């Protein structure tokens, strides 16, 4: 079942020309232009036919550049604005973390603000009373809850705002970049709370510039660009496509900067005369999605073959738990590159990342890559429990833009005599003493 359904949504904002700045009610009444002045001179289309669904209980991350329509979309889903055309349907109670503590009054106490803020978010007085202690505990404000909010630090203010909004206990939670503020500890706390939400089958919609958060946290990602959906699907893949696009745009901008002679810069007329050349052509990047499922990248460097080798030294797809395994990548550089890194990720059947690393994370410095080569990722003991696993392998730029990303393309099975639960088997042993008597271990 879908918790959110967005169908062909357009949102136009009115943009008023210069005339409007001088139009006052007096002059509007005198010239009889009241109705005309309420009409816009021009419209700006923030969303141009956006459609997507979010299944109940899923977490969707929305990425995109500034001005791509992310926040507008979120506001429409929250019901703060109405789409110009198209429909937005949301199932269940919605709470939007758009601005924490919006509506707090500085002169009155934290306690009173919690009540008023909670009621604005749709709770009854009794519901707030029941959740009040949780809210205060989550915000870590026990000592200060009776003090006027104007005496709070900005961190305390935000914590309180977050605590109220999250305790509305919505079916659908909308989050707009609120995690960017706040200290590390609080961010972790918020993420824990989101994870808790997911566990209880609630739907979360996350607008963020933190791509890391999207790949780690979301079941699916949506990339908005210029008011249209550029891509939707696997978070890793969407984020990589987005990164590639941003890098390409930056590249083009740098090229354009270089191309324009410096002597022209002081001339105001030549500034910004050609904005079109700096805006990336959206058509170009569609190639990203024509590549076969699970593989994408710019292909300056390619991974031509992937092989898994077990303790026997032969290529295999079946390993014993605890066996040594080598992942061998054959790579070919179609042109020499010096900005590169290799990465490997292991996922279980549920899509949980069991382990992921790359040469950059481990502190390696890229030298040069040219022609053909082989990369071996040697695991001395692969301590995974029995099950089916999938492999991500990639070669990418150090900023994350992929040359060649193979997403979950390789499958292997781990066998084990024991049927333990979980994912990872830490090397371990049991030991007993005193009155405990057990045999067989």
């Amino acid at each position, binding site marked *: 079942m879908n918790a959110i359904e967005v169908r062909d949504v357009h949102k136009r*904002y*009115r943009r008023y020309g210069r005339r409007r700045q001088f*139009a*006052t*009610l*007096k002059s*509007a009444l005198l010239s009889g232009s009241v109705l005309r*002045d*309420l*009409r816009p001179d021009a419209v700006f289309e923030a969303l141009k036919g956006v459609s997507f669904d979010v299944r109940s209980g899923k977490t969707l991350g929305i990425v995109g550049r500034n001005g791509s329509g992310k926040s507008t979309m979120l*506001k429409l889903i*929250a*019901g*703060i*604005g*109405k789409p110009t055309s198209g429909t937005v349907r949301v199932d269940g109670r*919605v709470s*939007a973390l*758009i*601005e924490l503590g*919006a*509506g707090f*009054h500085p*002169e*009155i106490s934290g306690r*009173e603000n919690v*009540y*008023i803020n909670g*009621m*604005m*978010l*749709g709770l*009854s*007085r009794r519901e707030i009373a029941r959740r009040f202690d949780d809210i205060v505990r989550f915000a870590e404000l026990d000592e200060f809850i009776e003090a*006027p909010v104007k005496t709070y630090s900005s961190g305390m203010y935000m914590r309180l705002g977050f605590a109220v909004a999250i305790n509305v206990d919505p079916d659908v939670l909308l989050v707009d970049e609120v995690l960017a503020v706040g200290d590390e500890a609080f961010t972790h706390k918020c993420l824990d709370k989101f994870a808790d939400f997911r566990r209880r089958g609630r739907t979360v919609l996350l607008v963020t510039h933190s791509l890391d958060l999207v790949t780690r946290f979301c079941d699916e990602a949506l990339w908005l660009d210029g008011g249209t959906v550029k891509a939707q699907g696997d978070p890793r893949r969407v984020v990589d496509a987005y990164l590639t696009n941003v890098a390409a745009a930056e590249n083009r901008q740098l090229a354009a900067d270089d191309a324009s002679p410096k002597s022209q810069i002081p001339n105001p007329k030549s500034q910004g005369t050609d904005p079109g050349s700096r805006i990336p052509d959206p058509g170009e990047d569609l190639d990203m999605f024509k590549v076969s499922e699970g593989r994408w990248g710019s292909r300056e460097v390619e991974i031509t073959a992937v092989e898994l080798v077990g303790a026997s030294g032969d290529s295999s797809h079946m390993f014993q738990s605890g066996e040594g395994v080598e992942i061998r990548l054959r790579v070919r550089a179609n042109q020499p590159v010096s900005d590169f890194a290799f990465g490997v990720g292991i996922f279980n059947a549920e899509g949980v990342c069991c382990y992921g690393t790359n040469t950059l994370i481990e502190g390696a410095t890229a030298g040069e890559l040219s022609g053909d080569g082989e990369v071996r990722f040697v695991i001395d003991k692969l301590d995974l429990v029995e099950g089916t696993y999938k492999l991500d392998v990639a070669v990418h730029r150090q900023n994350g833009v992929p040359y060649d990303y193979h997403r979950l393309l390789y499958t292997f099975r781990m066998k084990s005599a024991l049927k333990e639960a979980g994912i990872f088997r830490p090397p371990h042993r049991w030991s007993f003493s005193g009155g405990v008597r057990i045999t067989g271990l």
Partner: protein
Amino acid sequence: MGLGPPRLHWRQLLANLKQLFRYRALISSLVARELKARYRGSVLGFFWSFINPLLLLVIYTVVFTVVLPGVHPPELEPYAVFMFCGILPWTWFSSSLLESSNVLVAGGNLIKKVLFPAEVLPIVTVLAGLVHFCLGLPILAAFLIYYRVPVTPTDLLWLPLIVAIQLVLTVGLALLLSALTVHFRDVRDLLANLLTLWFFATPIIYPITQAPERVRRLLNLNPFTHLVIAYQEVLFKSGPFMQGNRLLAVGAASLVVFVFGYFVFDRLRDTLAEEV
């Protein structure tokens, strides 16, 4: 602002009104907050609600007994108390309109970031004004008793009705003005001047009987004239209350103003979050 089928729109209007009722706890909390926040940080705190009208009344008393004795008809003695009967409701009316014309712009952050019916804000302003009005009543009562003004106790039963009619009228105008100010910021300045004119076009500091016949006909077109006269009749003048029919007419007019104000507000609702 496309025009939908009118019947559908009325139903929407009613649904919004019903929804507003669900927010009554929020409204009452916001009114309490408004009153608390206003005096937070002052030494006398809440007592200012009493002291302000008291000081005003003292000033008028001094002016009309010491500085300007005998400019008013003798049957309207004490004149300061007579004026106060009109000034108290007028202060509620004018300050509510002035404040609510600004309330959506000032609360813009709220409207843009939180989903709740925006009409709550002007309504809260008017209700906070009502509370101040009610707090002024004991001061007025003290003076009425002190000067032994002969008030007919049964007339006082009309008072809640008069207050209710003024409330409906004020809320209607507040809704209209608050939504219009979002589009035309100069409503506020226009309003300040308009209210000064309106004040003198209402028999508050003069009895309507002193106005020339021609002017009186104009004054009668002002709905607030009848409200103020009703207050004066109930609170100040002896004899039975004669304003019943006029009061009902003003009540009907106030309802029309309210529906119109709410209608305009509802129409502009979707533009508010974008324009503030």
